[in-house]
């Protein structure tokens, strides 16, 4: 598979080309709030390498309102309607490497589950190609290099793109990815292009690691560490950390009736809400906030490590930036590792 370059002025042509037989979605900024994944119809200008806050890729893979089925109850017309899962193939362009990693974590939960593979997730995932941008301007909250190996994470993408100023360096990673690089606007990279691309990579890999890097939190963490209570006092239980997190994927299932149609859908839920674990008969196995604070951290740094052999946190920093009381997961994990932040 050969690397290529494309002039930024030709980016639109490439997007339009892909849009002929794919939905092409990219982070689109709004007047306010994080950028969101939208179909760009091949025509819109996109700023794929911008250092902006972007909603996690779960916005597409696990939509906030995911219809499972509808039941029509009008007399004589009763029927079950299952959504059409044979959707068009989709290209997500403008993911970061942490977003690619997050999809690997979601895959572990929803896809690599043998007979329990989730049909709704799989329908989207099977036809999804990931075009990831190599970050050249990390945000203040980023700590990807602390929790993982970016050279391994990049293998989860189909195409990698690196901003070289007036051009974009394009590297196919998989055959699916190579198939996306059609058009005479691609050319072979010059030696200078290769050097520049390697520089961006080297800068990214040189992102300072936090001292807790490499420590196996799953083995050293204490269930009774006073840190849980300390953080719980501050925590207001808003759940933003999990709503924004690219790997948090807990859901609720709701029924809603409109006229004669009953709709069953899946929507977000979070372990930070006190009714998350509330049983029908009123028992709540996680009644205290400290248990919920602990759950979020341990799910990522212990349970998913034990279950899937991967850290469920990608170091994307979304929770770090968004928590309104400055609960910083990097601080909690540093404390557990007995290291400074």
């Amino acid at each position, binding site marked *: 598979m050969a690397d290529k370059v494309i002039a930024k002025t030709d980016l639109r042509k490439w997007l339009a080309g892909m849009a002929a037989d794919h939905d092409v979605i990219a982070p689109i900024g709004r007047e306010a709030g994080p950028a969101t994944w939208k179909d760009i119809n091949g025509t819109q200008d996109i700023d794929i390498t911008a250092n902006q806050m972007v909603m996690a890729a779960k916005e597409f893979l696990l939509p906030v309102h995911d219809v499972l089925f509808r039941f029509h109850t009008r007399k004589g017309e009763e029927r079950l309607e299952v959504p059409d899962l044979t959707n068009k193939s989709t290209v997500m362009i403008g993911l970061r490497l942490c977003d690619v990693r997050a999809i690997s974590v979601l895959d572990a939960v929803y896809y690599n589950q043998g007979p329990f593979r989730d049909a709704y997730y799989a329908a989207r995932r099977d036809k999804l190609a990931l075009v990831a941008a190599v970050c050249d301007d990390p945000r203040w909250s980023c700590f990807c290099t602390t929790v993982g190996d970016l050279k391994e994470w990049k293998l989860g993408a189909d195409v990698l793109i690196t901003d070289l100023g007036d051009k974009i360096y394009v590297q196919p990673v998989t055959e699916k990815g190579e198939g996306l690089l059609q058009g005479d606007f691609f050319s072979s990279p010059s030696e200078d292009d290769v050097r520049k691309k390697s520089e961006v990579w080297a800068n990214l890999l040189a992102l300072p690691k936090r001292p807790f890097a490499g420590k196996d939190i799953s083995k050293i963490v204490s269930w009774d560490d006073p840190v849980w209570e300390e953080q719980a006092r501050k925590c207001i239980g*808003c759940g933003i950390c999990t*709503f924004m997190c690219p790997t948090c994927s807990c859901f*609720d299932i709701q029924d809603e009736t409109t006229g004669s149609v009953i709709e069953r859908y899946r929507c977000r839920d979070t372990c930070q809400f006190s009714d998350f674990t509330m049983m029908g008969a009123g028992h709540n196995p996680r009644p205290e906030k400290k248990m919920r604070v602990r759950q979020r951290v341990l799910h990522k740094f212990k349970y998913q490590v034990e279950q899937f052999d991967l850290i469920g946190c990608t170091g994307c920093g979304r929770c770090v930036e968004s928590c309104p*009381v400055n609960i910083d997961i990097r601080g909690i994990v540093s404390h557990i590792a007995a290291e400074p932040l």
Partner: protein
Amino acid sequence: MANEIEARIRAEAKKLLESSEVTLVIGWEAGSVPFKTSPAFIESPEDVERLVWNPACTNNLAVYLTEVAKRARVGIVVKPCDSRSIVTLVQEKQISRENVTIIGVTCPGIVDDTALKKAGVRLIDVLAVDWNGDSFNVTTGSGKSSVLTLDAVKEGCRTCAHRAPVISDVSLGEMPDANPLPVEPMEGSFSERREYWANEFERCIRCYACRQICPACYCTKCFADRNDLKWTNKHVGISDNWMWHMGRAMHLAGRCIGCGECERACPMDLPMMKLNREFARHVEELFGYTPGMDPEELPVLGQFNYDDKDPNGH
């Protein structure tokens, strides 16, 4: 000036804890990055050194009182807006005045990360944010320091007309020289405003952080969480989002003191203060009432006068 006040906050907190007048003092401590602070729960006199006072002390700490001040007497450090939240809580009998010892500080305005970003500051470079009289010094990595004026304050502070706490047991700081911007009525016709808000509400992901951060949102079971009587569905979409925001607005009219914490907390950056200011303006015009000023006064929704104006003219 700020450091002097910080020292006095620590001294007052120490006195309260040493005399056992309180078992807990709630204040702010340094955050994980220089442009943030975090709520601090101080229980021993040695720990008062953790307390800080700087332009990043944004959290309205009164949100914690309904939980802790029911059980014991606590000390709390407040800005003027936060002090008005305490008044509201006392008026509404959520806490009793005797259970809180209030260390009040005057405030020229707060600088949160949104305000810094708007002022063009690269957050990753920030080393410190300090007060400089009534303006702000932002020191960045290159050793440069830039002065931001009061225009750069957090959204809620721009129109704040109360720069000294309205209730306190110890009051610190001098009256700042700050001119609040006037509150203008919301622009546009009814249908333009409806379109504007539909567009804003559409972004809401219904995490309810705006509710969780708000000291006035203390209901043990929010209408939005009820499933025995469903006021809203969990469906994230314009109809249910609208229901949530109207419910929130109606429940806070005449009670919201405009600290701006809901807007700051919102991960989708909904302009909540626009709505809050609008209903505050209505309440002021109709009933001549400003929330959170006097603990002895009845809350506007808790009183009825025969000459109350009916907004619909009936």
